[in-house]
């Protein structure tokens, strides 16, 4: 039963991935302008354009282009970026991606490490004392934070911490060899922004889910058994709230990888989202496709993991009759 559930989720993920690849291919090919012409820029002539089109395989019918592209992607070959292509060199996208992925993962990782304990703690505290001042403070502040645009949060934080207080640098400027405290300090502003935005959602979801579980009969039973509040939350409620919480964490992680354009833009952080925006601006189709694939794969993998966690946390599936 467990394996069946896992396999069916895996199947669904793979199908979704395939649909995603088709959508991305169609979507990016909608971008205006002939790629070849864009690469050649204002110097394009009919002959050179045709030659480049042939070189890039753009003279083939779209479905063939798709098949070739999918094959290459599956083999880990994400194509050649327009960057430097004119000189006959080109840059393999993998090379461009590598440092960006590293940066994105580093930021996401640091944010996650901070966000998860904080949000779980605050969410649980709020759920443990519903209706109290603490709960209302948490509820109201998270509600407010998810209601304001993230660029405002980011800008206010910069003004306070970087410009007025001067504690942290206003933008991320990485030398590449930072470690430990220096690294944290350098990344402080984006981390702070993302922590605030992401944790608000997780706190709310944790609180809501735990409260929802708290209204179930087995929690009432635990109360009537004289189980202390702390144990009720941590042992009885949390276990059953794992599914939704893991899910919202997964969604937030996916957002951290691909959805933080505004934040990366404001802090000039060389992450993946910013790379994709730059790719769109340059009409660098292979680059846009590669980034989009990475985001979608991340999303699908994270959701798959969350589903796994949900399935595994369900004793019915873990311990069949």
């Amino acid at each position, binding site marked *: 039963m467990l394996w069946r559930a896992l396999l069916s989720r895996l199947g669904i993920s793979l199908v*979704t991935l395939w649909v995603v690849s088709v959508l991305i291919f169609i979507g990016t090919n909608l971008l205006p302008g002939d790629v070849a012409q864009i690469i050649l820029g204002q110097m394009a002539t009919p002959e050179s354009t045709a030659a480049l089109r042939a070189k890039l395989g753009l003279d083939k019918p779209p479905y063939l282009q798709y098949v070739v592209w999918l094959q290459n992607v599956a083999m880990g070959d994400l194509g050649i970026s327009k960057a430097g292509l004119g000189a006959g060199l080109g840059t393999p996208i993998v090379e461009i991606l590598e440092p960006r992925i590293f940066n994105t993962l580093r930021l996401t990782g640091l944010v996650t490490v901070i966000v998860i304990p904080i949000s779980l703690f605050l969410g649980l505290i709020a759920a443990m004392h519903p209706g109290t001042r603490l709960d209302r403070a948490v509820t109201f502040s998270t509600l407010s934070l998810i209601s304001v645009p993230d660029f405002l949060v980011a800008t206010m934080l910069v003004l306070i911490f970087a410009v007025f207080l001067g504690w942290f640098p206003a933008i991320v400027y990485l030398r590449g060899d930072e470690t430990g405290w220096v690294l944290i300090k350098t990344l402080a502003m984006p981390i702070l922004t993302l922590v605030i935005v992401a944790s608000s959602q997780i706190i709310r979801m944790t609180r809501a889910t735990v409260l929802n579980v708290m209204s179930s009969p087995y929690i009432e039973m635990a109360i009537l058994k004289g189980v202390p509040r702390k144990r009720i939350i941590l042992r009885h409620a949390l276990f059953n709230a794992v599914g939704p919480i893991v899910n919202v964490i997964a969604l937030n992680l996916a957002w951290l990888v691909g959805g933080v354009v505004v934040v990366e833009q404001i802090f000039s952080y060389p992450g993946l989202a910013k790379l994709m925006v730059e790719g769109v601006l340059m009409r660098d189709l292979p680059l846009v496709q590669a980034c989009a694939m990475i985001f979608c794969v991340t999303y699908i993998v994270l959701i798959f993991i969350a589903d796994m966690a949900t399935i595994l946390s369900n004793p019915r599936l873990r311990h069949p009759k």
Partner: protein
Amino acid sequence: MSDTPTPQNTNSAIQFDELPDAPPKRKIKLSLLGKIGVVVLIFWAIVVAIGPMIAPYHEADILDEELFIVPGSDEMYPDTDFQPPSKIVLLGSDYLGRDTLSRILFGARTTIGISFIATTLAYLLGVLLGIAAAVGSKRLDMILSRLNDALLSIPSIMFALVMIAALGSTIPLLILLTGIIYATSVFRIARSLGQEVMVSDFVEAARVRGEGLWWIITREILPNIAMPLATDFGLRFVWVILFISALSFLGLGVQPPMSDWGSMVKENLPGLIYGSVAPIMPALAIATLTISVNMIVDDISAHTGGKLAKRMIA
């Protein structure tokens, strides 16, 4: 002799009437925060209706320098941009020397209007397809669900970015894109609500009666999922406002000189370092609107037992 008075035993019926099944459902009563939310919401609704009429200036008007001349001063060309609130400009002026208040009043129609239409579109699409998936064949459900999953997996800002880069920035496209992007989450909710209602006894009763699909959808299912969907509409509306603001922030919003709140924040950000209120005011407008909608939704979903919250991520 119990739940109805029958002729034989009217006397005892009075004494031992059938006890009510459950206390009558509590009517939704808003908390103080919820009430504040409603007041703010009504305020913005009025602004949408009559904002441009009560605005002191037109949204495109760049105020003349003469307006700002302080009597007695020999400064002939006083600054007009990023002016603090005064009698001339109640909420200050923006980076070009336009009246912030007027632009917020005009912008309410743009921002709320676009978001509202986009959310409505998302609902039309999402509910239609979601219910189709819920009541339709397994194969249809599979196709729609996978397509939906795929769309969901693409970061929405990226999706919008590529499409706007591809097709140009126009209001109809903005609405269509936002509608499609948010239809994905509406789809999931409508589908799960639809599936829930679909297996309920009263739908089964209608099926046993021989009712057609259309009747079942419109008379049995829709009325029963209307309330949770309406609540969710509020939340979705907030996200759409934030999303469109983010797009505006990235420069993909409406055409100048039309004002929308998101672009207003962006274009006036340079004033922030001078302590200008120009970027703060539209941000506050967004925040008051979104927070108030969220407060109302929060209140309502507190009464529906957090079911909603569970679906939000489902």
